[in-house]
């Protein structure tokens, strides 16, 4: 691995430590170089996600369940 890469990761970890652990919020941090993050290209994002739009039956509120039977 290149020294420069190791340096970035180390800095990233230090910066994350400085920013995210001030109040004992966690005990683990994951740092990944931005170029290693795979994301959906911006111009494809809507086509990528819109198949979920018309599937309202995946949400609990789609079903009418009387309150009297308790939380479900």
């Amino acid at each position, binding site marked *: 691995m290149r020294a420069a890469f190791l340096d970035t990761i180390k800095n990233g970890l230090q910066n994350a430590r400085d920013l995210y652990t001030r109040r004992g919020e966690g*005990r*683990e941090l994951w740092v990944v170089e931005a170029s290693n993050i795979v994301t959906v290209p911006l111009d494809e994002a809507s086509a990528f996600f819109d198949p979920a739009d018309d599937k309202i*039956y995946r949400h609990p509120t789609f*079903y009418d369940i009387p309150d009297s*039977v*308790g939380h*479900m």
Partner: protein
Amino acid sequence: MDKFEQAFNELIEKELKIEPRDWMPEKYREHLIRQVSQHAHSEVIGMQPEGNWLLRAPSLRAKQVLLAKIQDEGGHGLYLYSVAETLGISRQEMIEQLHTGKAKYSSIFNYPTLNWADIGAVGWLVDGAAITNQVSLQKTSYGPYSRGMVRICKEESFHQRQGYEIMMQMAFGTPEQKEMAQDALNRFWFPALMMFGPHDKDSAHSSQAMKWKIKIESNDQLRQKFIDHTIKQIEYLGLTCPDPNCKWNEETGHYDHSPFNWDEFWNVVNGNGPCNQERLDHHKKAHNDNKWVREAAAAYALKTEAQVA
């Protein structure tokens, strides 16, 4: 006690999460691998009894809902296999253990789904029991498992409601439909209650798991919670609980239940339930039939990744 073990004990004591990179006792790791892989297998095998009704769902709406629900269960299996992988077991090993019978899955899925109301009963009672267990597991001490449970519980909420909706349609339908609903309840009630596992006094694994806070509430506590919650749902449907001893107990503040037929439970766990063979055979066949897909995907990845580099 060395400093690693001390650090582990302190994390458990403080109810913080154990993460994959942390030192953990071998037995803790083994227990989790067994529990999480069996949980994963249950999600995946559980798709079969419901899949049995996909092509016979009574309406397009019912089919869409059932398909979405089954899809979710497949997803739950994937989350859980990933959790188990962080503990150092490969997916291939887990599948092998399922196929050789070394790893079990929830016994409930070895019962057949005979009529459409069974799909309602599965969502209502089987998912309902699983949710009771999974809500409690959100607080489990192993970080990846705990976070997986949070996500799974969010997705589960529609599963139980779609099941109960089917039960309402059947129970408030024709007399024949109501009879089917009662029949489904009769067959699934006791197996659903036995999903929580043996009684606390007979469960050695369970007490160690509670010391490690892998399990937060005991089998009997969770089962009782589920019974107490479900009785009013049976009453609303106008159906009858198949257990004549299921009555409110003023003294304990809970509903009573008859002794369970543990012989039947163990018989099914040990492979002799009505559908054990069929479930495993189907999984093996699907796994083998799809071998070429895995090979093609691996070959494609090799080719395209080589191009990028």
